[in-house]
C-alpha cells in the first residue's frame, strides 16, 4: 500500500504507524458522562468499505494525517494533514 503523504509524496505504508478510525471524536474534557467516554474508547463502526483513518509518518516527515482507504480493497484514495500543519478547513461559502 502506498500512502500519498502530503509532505513527502507517495510512500510505502511500512514507513507509517497506524492510528485507527479517524471518525471517532474525543469528548471535550468537560464531558462528565462515563458512557460518552466509554463509547469513545471502545465502540467502533468497523465498516467494510470506505474508511477514514489516522496514520503517522514516523519514518518520514513525522506528520499525522487522515487517510481515505477502502478496507475491502485496500485502495488508498487520499491523505490530508491534521494538527498544527493542516491546511485550514474551508467552510462552504468562505470564499
Amino acid at each position, binding site marked *: 500500500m502506498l500512502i500519498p503523504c502530503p509532505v513527502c509524496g507517495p510512500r510505502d505504508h511500512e514507513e507509517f504507524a497506524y492510528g*485507527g478510525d479517524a471518525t471517532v471524536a474525543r469528548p471535550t474534557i468537560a464531558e462528565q458522562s462515563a458512557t460518552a467516554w466509554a463509547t469513545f474508547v*471502545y465502540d467502533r463502526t468497523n465498516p467494510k468499505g470506505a474508511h477514514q483513518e489516522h496514520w503517522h509518518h514516523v519514518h518520514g516527515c513525522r506528520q499525522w494525517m487522515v487517510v481515505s482507504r477502502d478496507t*475491502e480493497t485496500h485502495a488508498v484514495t487520499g491523505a490530508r494533514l491534521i494538527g498544527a500543519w493542516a491546511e485550514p478547513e474551508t467552510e462552504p461559502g468562505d470564499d
Partner: protein
Amino acid sequence: MAEYSIWSVLRHGLTGNKGWKPTWRKPDPKPSYDAIIVGGGGHGLATAFYLAKEHKIRNVAVLERGWLGQGNIGRNTTIVRSNYLLDENAQFYEWSLKLWEGLSHALNYNVMFSQRGVLNLANNPAQLDQFAERGNAMRLNGIDAELLMPDAIAKLCPGLDLSQNARFPVVGGLLQPRAGTARHDAVAWGFAHAADRLGVDIIENCEVVGFVKEGERITGVETTRGRIAAPKIGVAVAGMTSEVMRRAGITKLPIESHVLQAFVTEPLKPLINCVVTFGAGHMYVSQSDKGGLVFGGSLDGYNSYAQRGNLPIVHEVATELLACFPNAGKVRLLRSWGGIMDMSMDGSPIIAKGPLPGLYLNSGWCYGGFKATPGSGWCFAHTIAHDEPHALNAAFTLERFHEGRHIDEAGTGATPRLH
C-alpha cells in the same frame, strides 16, 4: 458399526472407495426452526452440535453464506493451547482443551488432534521471569506447564538455533505438553458430520442479509434463500461480526476487523516436532503431517476485510522464522493467505445473550479462536439453551467494556491490533 471406523475404512478400501456418502446432507431451509446459527465456521457448527447433543435442541439450522471451511476455520495455523494467565481465560480455554482431548471420539471423525506440545521461547531474562509467573498461574489453575532451560530445549527441539551468539539468544522457555495442533478442515467437517447426524440442517450458500424484528425482538432472518423464523438466533460470523450485526441495527461494537496472514513451505522431512513460538518478536511455527512448515506472526495492523495482506509482514515473519531455524533458509514458501479476525478491544471473546431480545452473540476471537472452537460452541449452546451463560463464559459479556471489567491478557489496552 460406526460410520467411520477401521472396519469401514477396510471395507471401502477393498471395494475401490466407491461407496462413501457425503458426510452431511444438503437440505433446503425450512420456514422455521427452534434455533438458527448464523455462520458455518468452526464456532457456528460446534454450537449447533452441542445444542443437539447436550441440550436436545435438534430443530436447528446453521446458515453459511459460502461453503463450510471458507472462513477462518480453514485458514488458521491450527495451534491449540490453554497457556493463559488470567483466570477467566485459563478456565475457559482449559475446558476447551479437555473437549479437544475427546473430540475425535465425540464426533466419530478424526480431527487429527496431536498433543505435540507448545514451546514459548524466552529471549531475555525478564521474559523468562514472566513465563515463570505464567507457568505458576497455569499450574494453580490445574493446567500443565513446565519451565525449561536451554539444555532441555535442545533435547526437545533439535533443529532450533540455541547458540549464545544469536542476535536474540534463547534463555529458556515455557512448555505446555498437552497443547498441540489439529487438522482445521477436519474440525469443520467433523462438527458438520456429527451435527447433521443429530438432525441439524446445515445450509450452505445462504447469506443472512437482514433480520426480522417484532418491536425490539429478533424473530427471524432474511436470507438469499428466503425468510426463516426462529425464536433464538445466534450470530457466530468472526470477522464479519460488525457487518452482520449492523443488519440487526447494532451500529457500533467493541470490535475491529483486521487481516492476519499465514504461510506454508514446501514439505520437508521431520524437523520441528512441537509448536515453537519466538519470544523476541511474534512468530509461531509447527510442521504439518504433510511436512510443510506452517507459520504466522502479527496482524498487518490496519482495519481490513480483504483476505490477503501486504509484504512487510511476509518479510518480518520470515525473518523471525530464520532467527529460530536458520536451517530453513533455503526452503521455498509454497502459499500464503489471510483471514479476517474479529479483534476485540481487550483481546478476549464475547459469548453472550443479546444485545437484542432473541439474539445471541459469539465474537471477539482475535488470534485464538481455533483452539476455542469446542469450548466456544459448548458455552454458546448453553447460553442459547438456558438463556443465561455458563460459569465458564459468564465474564465474556458485551457490557464488560463499558463496565470496566476488561479481560486484557496482553495488558495493551483498547487497541485491537495489539492483542
